[in-house]
Every structure is written in C-alpha cells, then in structure tokens.
C-alpha cells in the first residue's frame, strides 16, 4: 500500500449487522486489519440468546405482552411480529434511542441495538434481484438507471449464498433467478394439494419454497436446522444466517478483526488536504468517553437510516449538505416495501394429515405481473410477490369461542378440521424524491446527535398495485380450492411506512455524480476511500426481500476497494 501515514487500522466498518459482518469478513480475509464499530451492546453467540427454547411457562406472564414495559420502552419495536419477551434484549430501546416520530410523517423504524444488528431477528427470506429488476429504472424512467446489471452481480450472489447457506428450489424463472441452494425443506400435504391445483387452474403462478437462509445441510461450525421454530430468539447451533453464526466468526478467525461494541459513531472527518476521510469520531454508549480512529478505508454498514444519519451529521465546510452529498440526493428516494395486504384461504382438504416439527419458513409465489414486458391492461409498473404460510389453528385463535366445560376444552385442544393458507403480499416501491430521511433541527439524542425524522408517503403506483395484489390473491385462492377466502389490508392506506423493514435508497448509486451519492462500486463519487454498502445504495427496490442484494454488493465493494487500495488508487 502506498499510503505512508500511519493509521490505527487499514479499514473501519461502521455497524456489525448483516452488511457490516460481511464487510468485516471480506476485508479481514483479504489481510486488512479491520476495526468494526457497533453502537449496540455485545451479544455473544449462544450465551446471549436468553430466550432461546424458553417454554411459555417460563416467560413473564406466560408470554402475554408486558404492556406497561412495551409501551414505555419499546413503543415502535413492540409492534413487529418478531418482538417478544423471549428476545427483548436484541431490540432498540425506543425511549433511550428515540427518533423524531412527531416530525414529518409516520414511519416505523425497526432496529436492533446489539452486535449482529437485525441479522439476529430477520425473517431470513433470501432472493436475488433479476435482470429485469436492474433494468427497471432505465426502462420505465422512475429513479435513475442502475449502474450494475445482473450478470455483474450474479457471481457475488453465488459467493454469498454458498457461505451463508440458503435452502430453496430451482425454478428457472427469469424474474426470480435461481441461486446456490441447499436442499429445500419439505412441504405440508395441503401445500402439495394447492400446488397441484394451481398448476392446472392458474398455470401462470409458481408456488415454490421460500428461499431462506437456514441450513438444511451442515456447514463448517454450523449445523442443520433442528426445527424448533422461533428463530428470532436466536440459534445456538448457528442454523440460520446471522453475523454471529457466520461472518463474524470467519472474520475473527483471521486474527485481523477488532470489534468494539457500545461504540456510537458520531461523525466522519473529511481531510481537505487528501480529499479523503481521515477518521471517525466515536462516543462510548456507557461512559460517553470520546475517541477517534483513523484508517485507510471506511465502510458504512450502519443500516440505511443509521448511515444516512451519520453522513448528514458529518457535514463540513466542504460538504455543507452532508458528507459526500454534492449531488443533493442524500436522504432522498427512501423506499420500503408495502406489506400486510393479502388473502387468507380456508381449505377442507388433507384434514387426515398433520405435521411434525416447526418449519421456520413458508412458500413463495414470485412476481407474475409485468414480467418480461409491461402488461398492457395494468395501471401500474413493476410488481409484487406473496410470502405464504400454513396456519393450522390452535387454542390461540379459538379461546373466545362460546361455551364452557369439556366441549370448550376439547375444541381448543383438538386439531381443527381445516387448514389456512395465508398469502401476504410484498410490493415494489418506486423511488421518489419527496420520500426522505432528514435530521431534526431541534431534537437530539442522549449523545447530542441530531435525531432523524422521516417524510414518506406511498404513491399512486403502490396503491394501484396493492389493489391488483388483493384481486389476484382472491383468484389464486379460488384456483387453489379454498372454500372461503378473506382479504386483509387496505389498498388505499397500505402499511405504515417502515413496517416492511426494508428501508433503502437514501444514498443511491448511479453513474452520474450529479444524481447519485455512490458509483457502481458503492464508492462515494466525491470521496475515494468512503464506501456505503448497506441498503442506502439501492437505486430501486424490486419486490423481493433485499438483504441478499446488500450482502452481494458489500462483498463486491470490498473486493474493489482492496484492489484499488493495493494499486495505490485510494
């Protein structure tokens, strides 16, 4: 390396979640000395998972939500399905670490506050973007063209999939490219029945295994899933991908990793003389002690909103509107998938069948609208997919039955003579300039850092798409033989923004420095040693869960950054 000034580290990675773990692994494995700074508490694999396998009779109130505590400390986080008494230690305390909820428009910001970030609680759904996804902006003119195409990123998808372990089934679909899959999990009998009927009555619909970052075959140091069920409480056998189970141990094994928890990165310092970032300023979350660390390379992996906050808060004379923000787009073009709309169907088939084990994922119906080309009759662009789940109901949905005594008890105890096939849609969101994250002018957090606020409203395209999603959901349930179907969700209102937990796009990439914060390598157009690889780089959202794409771009950016560093270009 040509840089002769001494640095504390070769590279600093901010954040230890899904993308930070990947940056740490890749950079360490390439021989760099890496410091990972994580604002959250330490969360050791296994020993930190206090609620793993906890039975209901051990939980406070036998598992009924602790309403007082949740409302006081976790008013936002406690709204998500994955939040529970068995994993409360993973989540951000909303009172201690607030954002400006009363400014702008409503937005639910879900986040962890631990080493591993949201990799511990995520839903593990793992899909590739397609060629069509990467071309969408250029084709229909929303947003700016992606500077990367599918062929360029495909090898990086493979690189990531092989390492994290993804189970799934190949389908040969252009709109949902196959990846490197472990063997798929098996199906409920009713799912096989539905699959057979859809083939006949709705041949345009594919029903396939949800591609999920859970092992069905052992990997080094990690064992195949034992089907306990509630992954969001942590997994000591490392069976689902998390930073703890996968990337951080690999980084650690190189001897090149230093990880500091409770390290809140406050801002980055830009050195006018070199035109590069020289150091990061850090506040200790417990002691409030301040420190600074220098490095040659800086990778921001603090999650979309965290990174955007950091860049905005690192404004200087050279970058008055936020670091690396000569384009003025930083904070804008925020996207999230809408969800919580769909159709549930009741089936009276396969009622002589039951199940054994808790399969921690479902099936998936990939996008089938506007595939290959725009469907002429549709009043929206792009598309949506459905995540599906089998619900065999139990006492929790029957305790408000009428009656008492043996009959009541039996009805709650016994297996009901029906199945529910639940289809929840996830819709693509267009990038819009008006949807944004910004810093509050008046509110600061306990570290003196300006709080973030959100302005986000769904557009007409999302609403039109949601209407179609509901109508098509009814068609699919009918074709599959549901005796009854129940649509849920409001296509006018859609979900509370943020509830998709796929926030992205606020430091987008693009070839034109006047319109994008990052170039095609996730490198800031304005600053060569600054890379942003969490969801902020996304130029469009597709309709599939995004974290695999974040990981693939992170790995690719690390490769590029180290090559450039070694060539003396950074």
């Amino acid at each position, binding site marked *: 390396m040509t840089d002769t000034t001494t640095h504390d580290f070769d590279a600093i990675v901010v954040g230890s979640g899904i993308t930070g773990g990947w940056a740490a692994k890749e950079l360490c494995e390439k021989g760099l000395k890496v410091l990972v700074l994580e604002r959250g508490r330490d969360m050791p694999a296994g020993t930190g998972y206090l609620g793993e396998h906890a039975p209901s009779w051990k939980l406070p109130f036998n598992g009924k939500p602790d309403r007082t505590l949740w409302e006081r400390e976790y008013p936002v986080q406690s709204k998500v399905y994955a939040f529970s008494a068995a994993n409360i230690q993973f989540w951000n305390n909303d009172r201690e670490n607030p954002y400006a909820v009363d400014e702008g428009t409503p937005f639910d910001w879900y986040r962890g506050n631990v080493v591993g970030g949201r990799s511990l609680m995520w839903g593990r759904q793992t899909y590739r973007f397609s060629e069509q996804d990467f071309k969408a902006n250029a084709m229909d003119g929303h947003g700016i063209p992606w500077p990367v195409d599918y062929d360029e990123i495909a090898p990086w998808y493979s690189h990531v999939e092989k390492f994290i372990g993804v189970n799934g089934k190949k389908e040969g679909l252009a709109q949902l490219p196959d990846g490197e899959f472990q063997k798929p999990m098996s199906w409920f009998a009713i799912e096989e029945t539905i699959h057979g009927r859809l083939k006949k009555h709705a041949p345009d619909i594919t029903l396939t295994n949800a591609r999920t970052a859970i092992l069905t075959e052992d990997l080094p140091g990690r064992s195949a899933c034992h089907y306990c069920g509630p992954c969001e409480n942590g997994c000591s056998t490392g069976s689902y991908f998390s930073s703890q189970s996968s990337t951080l141990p690999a980084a650690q094994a190189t001897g090149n990793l230093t990880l500091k928890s409770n390290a809140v990165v406050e801002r980055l310092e830009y050195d006018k003389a070199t035109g590069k970032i020289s150091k990061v300023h850090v506040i200790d979350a417990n002691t409030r002690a301040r420190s600074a660390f220098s490095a040659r390379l800086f990778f921001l992996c603090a999650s979309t909103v965290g990174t955007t906050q950091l860049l905005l808060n690192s404004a200087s004379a050279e970058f008055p509107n936020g670091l690396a923000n000569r384009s003025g787009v930083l904070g804008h073009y925020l996207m999230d998938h809408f969800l919580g709309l769909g159709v549930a169907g009741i089936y009276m088939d396969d009622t002589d069948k039951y199940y054994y084990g808790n399969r921690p994922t479902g099936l998936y119906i990939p996008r089938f609208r506007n595939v290959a080309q725009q469907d002429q009759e549709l009043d929206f662009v792009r598309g949506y997919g459905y995540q599906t789940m089998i619900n065999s109901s*139990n006492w929790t949905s029957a305790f408000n039955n009428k009656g008492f005594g043996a009959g009541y008890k039996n009805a709650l105890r016994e297996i009901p003579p029906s199945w529910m096939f639940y289809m929840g849609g996830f819709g693509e969101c267009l990038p819009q300039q008006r949807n944004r994250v910004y810093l509050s002018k008046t509110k600061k957090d306990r570290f003196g850092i300006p709080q973030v606020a959100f302005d986000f409203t769904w557009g007409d395209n999302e609403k039109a798409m949601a209407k179609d999603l509901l109508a098509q959901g009814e068609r699919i349930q009918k074709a599959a033989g549901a005796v009854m179907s129940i649509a849920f969700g409001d296509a006018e209102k859609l979900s509370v923004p943020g509830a998709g937990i796929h926030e992205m796009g606020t430091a987008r990439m693009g070839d034109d420095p006047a319109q994008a914060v990052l170039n095609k390598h996730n490198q800031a157009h304005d600053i060569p040693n600054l890379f942003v690889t969490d969801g902020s780089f996304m130029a469009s959202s597709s309709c599939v869960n995004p974290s695999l794409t974040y990981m693939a771009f992170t790995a690719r950016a690390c490769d590029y950054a180290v090559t450039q560093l070694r060539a003396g270009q950074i």
Partner: protein
Amino acid sequence: MNRRQFLECAAILVSGATTGRLAFALTEEQMVYLASAPDYTSQKVDYFSPAQRKLVAAIAQTIIPRTDSPGAIDAGVPHFIELMVAQWLNDGERSIFNAGLKDIETRIPEEHGKAFDELDGDRQLAVLEALEAAASDSPWYVQGNIRRAFISDAPFICQIKELTAWGFFTSEVGATTVLRYNVMPMRFDGNTPRTPGESTWAPFNFYH
C-alpha cells in the same frame, strides 16, 4: 430439556458439523436463561381473599374441567389468574374484574343459598352461561386471532375465560400433557397421519 442439556446437545450438533465454533462454551453460568428461570407462576401473590380464591378456582375449573386429561386446577390456573389480575391487568380492567367477582360473591348466595364454589356442576355452568349470554355482544367474541390486544372493556366473564385458557394452555401441564410439546423436533414432516381426537402442538410463539 433444560438449558444446560440443550447447550450440550447444541455443542454436539455443531461439532458434528466439523471444526467447532463453540462460541457458547464458558459464560453460561453468568447468564440467566429464561429456559432455566423459575416458572412465572412460582411467584407468591396475595391479592384475592380466601373466599375469592375458591370462587376463582371453581370458575376456572368450570371453564376447563378435568376430563381424561388435567383441568385448570391441576395446571395451576387459579394462581395464574391471581397473579395476572394483580400484576398484568390495568386499573380499568382490574376494576371490571373485581366488580365481576364481587357480583358472583354476593349475588350467588342470595339467589342459590350458597356460594358459587359450593353449587353443583350444572348450576355453576348455568351461572356462567347466563353471564356469557348477557355479554355476547362484546367485541371480545368477534372471531379474531391472537394478534389482537387484550380487549380492555371486555366484561368479567370474557376476562376470566381468556385468562383461564391462556393460563391453562401455556402452563407446563397444559402444553405438555394436554397439548403436545417438543422443542427439538430435529426434522419437519408435513405429511404425518392424523388420528381422531389428537391434540395440536403447543404453539412455539405467541404473536401479539
């Protein structure tokens, strides 16, 4: 399986997966695992009077009686209800509960000449059915699911039914002997035969 046994098991599983990571080796002793914590219902509580305690036990047992499997009293439900009323209900809900219990405490002896817990089973059932009939337009009865919040203005009979069912099926007795419970299934099979009268699996998570 307790937490220690599980972690030992996990270590074996992972070491079978070649080159162990075993990051969970040492600090177990320092951590309080929910899985090895005392049961929620092992706490003491002194909220009801002895007479009320008998009433609550009799109501819970009427809702979920012992049949060929354990009932509410076997599963410790009355104690669960007392804990929940004391600790979990908010003030408004608690006063609905207290008023409902008071009503049974005073009205039943006036109408029947003895306390609810001394009535025969049919009479007890009739008392609860009358309460349910009077409450039947409460939104509590709308077929919903577990993701709904506790309905704060639900009448007493609904409150005690919900607490009884919850306390029963989430108890160790209810989950493991009335329902079926297995925290380490090791495989998934979606096509097992169903025998008539079989119980569901105890749900592994309580979405709210």
